[in-house]
């Protein structure tokens, strides 16, 4: 809800938010009602009984028990009704169901450390499944913090020396603010991040991939993807063709060039031949290969070279181990500038719905660490 640049309500993205908002709006209605009564009454009286007006001031009242009781009992009853709804909501917020997904949270100056039950760890971001109750068990390592997700209408203190709990069921996939809402020192305002609510299937996959949207890939696998994406295989096949020499088993072979010189096909040579192919034209071929300088990142080239080294060996030919059909657009290394292209390539290469990769449920934490390392 928003009005030009003025949002009027936070997103409503959890079961608790759905229970919360009616109580909140009821209180808004009540407040508006009484504010209008008081403001209108005061202004009306101020105008009508302004000195000099010919208002009826006869028989002024100074005490009236029934009137006093009226405006004591009506606000009291309304208050008790609102207290009832507020308390019912509170009890709901404080009573997690039994079948919760357990996640553990550690607060420290000034970050959130989050640990999922299978060992996947993340910092300042909390991934949760939509539609499944999640219970956070939280503790602080130093001072007081508070774990606050406005879109879910949940907040709980994170206290050193004791566990506190917070639960919710996310109802809408999306990214939401996560704030520390208990003043905790210099960088308090930056102790936050986001909550990512995902479809349960995506969440399960994210979890089994060790905190990545796709299973972490080896360099060869990543290289194979790029090999396919930029269509190296159009010309470079298993055998030498008219257009281009085969790259199978090229690594560490001596290459003879058109000008008669030669070089060992090491990493340096392979890189140069991708980004500046005309520096060394292999004997028997012309200047037909596109120049990839500026087209591929160094990361791409590293992976590509790694893949070229294993071309023709069994590692390179296991199709399911190379491409993951479930990769989302952000799947391949979000820091990669060509990630969108890469994603297209992935989709283009994954027509077969049965080519589901085998899940590694074994030791995802290791994968997470490896993946984290790679992203840095």
């Amino acid at each position, binding site marked *: 809800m928003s009005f030009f*640049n003025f*949002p009027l309500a936070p997103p409503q993205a959890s079961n608790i938010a759905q229970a*919360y908002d009616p*109580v*909140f709006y009821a*209180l808004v209605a*009540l*407040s508006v009602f009484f*504010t209008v009564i*008081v403001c209108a009454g*005061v202004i009306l*009286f*101020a105008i009508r*009984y*302004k*000195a000099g007006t010919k208002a*009826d*001031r006869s028989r*002024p*009242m*100074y*005490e*009236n028990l029934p*009137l*006093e009781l009226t*405006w*004591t009992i009506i*606000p*009291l009853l309304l*208050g008790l009704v609102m207290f009832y709804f*507020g*308390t*019912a*909501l*509170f*009890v709901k917020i*404080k009573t997690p169901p039994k079948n919760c997904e357990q996640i553990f949270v550690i607060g420290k*100056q000034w970050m959130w450390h989050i640990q999922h039950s299978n060992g996947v760890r993340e910092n300042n971001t909390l991934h949760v499944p939509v539609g499944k109750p999640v219970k956070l068990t939280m503790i602080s390592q130093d*001072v007081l913090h508070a774990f*606050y997700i*406005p879109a879910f*209408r949940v*907040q*709980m*203190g994170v*206290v*050193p*020396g*004791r566990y*506190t709990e917070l639960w919710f069921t996310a109802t809408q996939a999306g990214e939401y*603010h996560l*704030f520390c*809402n208990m*003043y905790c*020192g*210099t*960088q*308090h*305002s*930056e102790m936050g991040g986001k909550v990512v609510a995902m479809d349960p299937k995506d969440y399960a996959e994210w979890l089994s991939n060790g905190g990545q949207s796709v299973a972490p890939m080896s360099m060869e696998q990543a290289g194979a993807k790029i090999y396919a994406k930029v269509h190296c295989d159009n010309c470079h096949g298993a055998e030498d063709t008219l257009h281009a020499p085969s790259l199978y088993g090229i690594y560490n072979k001596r290459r003879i060039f058109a000008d008669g010189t030669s070089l060992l096909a090491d990493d340096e040579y392979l890189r140069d031949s991708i980004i500046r192919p005309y520096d060394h034209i292999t004997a028997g071929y012309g200047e037909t290969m596109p120049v990839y300088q500026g087209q591929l990142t160094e990361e791409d080239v590293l992976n590509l070279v790694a893949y070229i080294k294993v071309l023709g060996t069994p590692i390179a030919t296991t199709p399911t181990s190379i491409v993951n059909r479930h990769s989302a657009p952000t799947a391949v290394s979000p820091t990669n500038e060509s990630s969108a292209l890469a994603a297209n390539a992935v989709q283009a290469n994954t027509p077969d719905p049965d080519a589901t990769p085998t899940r590694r449920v074994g030791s995802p934490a290791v994968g997470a660490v490896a993946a984290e390392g790679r992203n840095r």
Partner: protein
Amino acid sequence: MSSTVIPSGELGQQAEESNYLNVKHTIASWLLTGDHKRIALLYLVSTSFFFFLGSIAAGLIRYELTSPAGVVLESETYNKVFSSHGILMVFTFLVVAIPAIFGNFLVPLMIGARDLAFPRLNLASWYMYMTGGTLILAGMIFGGVDTGWTFYTPYSSMYSNGQVTMVIIGIFIAGFSTITTGINFVVTIHKMRAPGMTWFRLPLFIWAMYATSLMMILATPVVAITLLLVVYERTFKLPVFSPELGGDPVLFQHLFWFYSHPAVYIMILPAFAIVSELIANFSRKRIFGYHFVAFSSLAIAGLGFLVWGHHMFVSSQSMYESIVFSLISYLVAVPSAIKIFNWMATMYKGNIRLQSPMIYAIAFLMIFTVGGLTGLFLGAAGTDIHLTATYFVVAHFHYVMVGGTMLAFLGGLHYWWPKITGRMFSDGIAKVNAVIVFVGFNLTFFPQFIVGWLGMPRRYHYYYFAPEFQAYHIMSTLGATVLGLGFILPAFYLTMSLFTGPKAGPNPWGAHGLEWETSSPPPTSNFTETPIVMDEVYDFDPVSDHAKDLKDIEERNRRRSEEGYCGSEDDN
């Protein structure tokens, strides 16, 4: 009321020549005075100074928040600035201002006494206040504190690097000034009422001041001890609050709010005190439901001690505890509602003078209503979960503390200014200023309700990760600029009135009450003779608007012939 002491005509002129202001002129005569009126002025000057400093901090905060990534300050500085704002405003202004200025000046005058029961204790309390205030300021200058005014442990006791100890000792000492002021008021109200001034002839100002004093005496020692424990833990590693040492951090919150929630009422009850006076006197009508208004103050003072846990719904206190605190919080809302309705009913069939103090009172009624009603969101445990510690809370307590206490303070300052100084200010400018304050206030703090509901946490320096909050912050800062103007203007036109303002005379507003029966400014002994009270409180007749007492009419005529500056509306 009793008219035996009204100096009329020539006698009044002579009395004015020797009043509490001009009786002596030396600096020592001010710094060593026992006169409650002079001490009130000492407080007026010193609290205004602290208010000014606190306002500068507020301005810096507002300026900084116009941009999601800050403007001029580092985060550490920002944290020190908002802490200074809170500490100065709460401990050196809001808690002190109305009781120590208007209470000091008016309690003896209103009950017909010559002074407070313990004049030297009264002076000592000002010195304690100044010592505390100086220590607090020194702490802020030599390093600052970044704990917020709440000093939550274990951050304050184990982690913060600022001058926490010095500031806490400052607050500790200033706390004693509050306690002694409270004792002074209670004893004075019990023992020094003029003959005929029965309990139910007391102006409601006195009732509310009495309730405030009780809370001051009972609550302040708790925060003093609590803060001292923080100092012990900081300095001697005495294990109380820090779990690393074996303490309990949440215990601090219980002890702190056991004081600080009553402190909220210490800040707002004096505002009720002033507003009751303003509404009754400018409506020319006895307050509606005098007994209900009087006892609702005591009910608030009593129940106010039992609701502290509503600050702690997310602190990890037990669910059942929270529910009980929530229930009592809803109950304490009722006496406030009673007051609002009684004030409205007082205006009904009144003979209302829309002079500047009344404009402030009307603005107070509207703003305090919003402040009170938004308290319902925070008193309900369920809805508090999302809103606690967000800008919704900031907006709520500013509606109560600024819109409530500050507006009442300004209303009271305008109302009693002629009594304090003997001079009238320009009522026209004052009315315009009341509107400026009202508009500026709402523009500043209403957007904060919305941005808090959206989830903007308080005490955040940056919000670049949530730029959707910015529009509201800019609105709020614009409003703060207007509000600032509304606080600066009175300093000018009130000061100006000291030099150019017409003489006020004993009762420029045509108000009812013992303080208006002596000259303005009053003599050092307040009354030339001990007044004898023979009529009821707020004894107006709105139908004829003729004071029942003949001498009141005489008095009014004399004033009209003298100036008629502010009494023009009486001519209708």
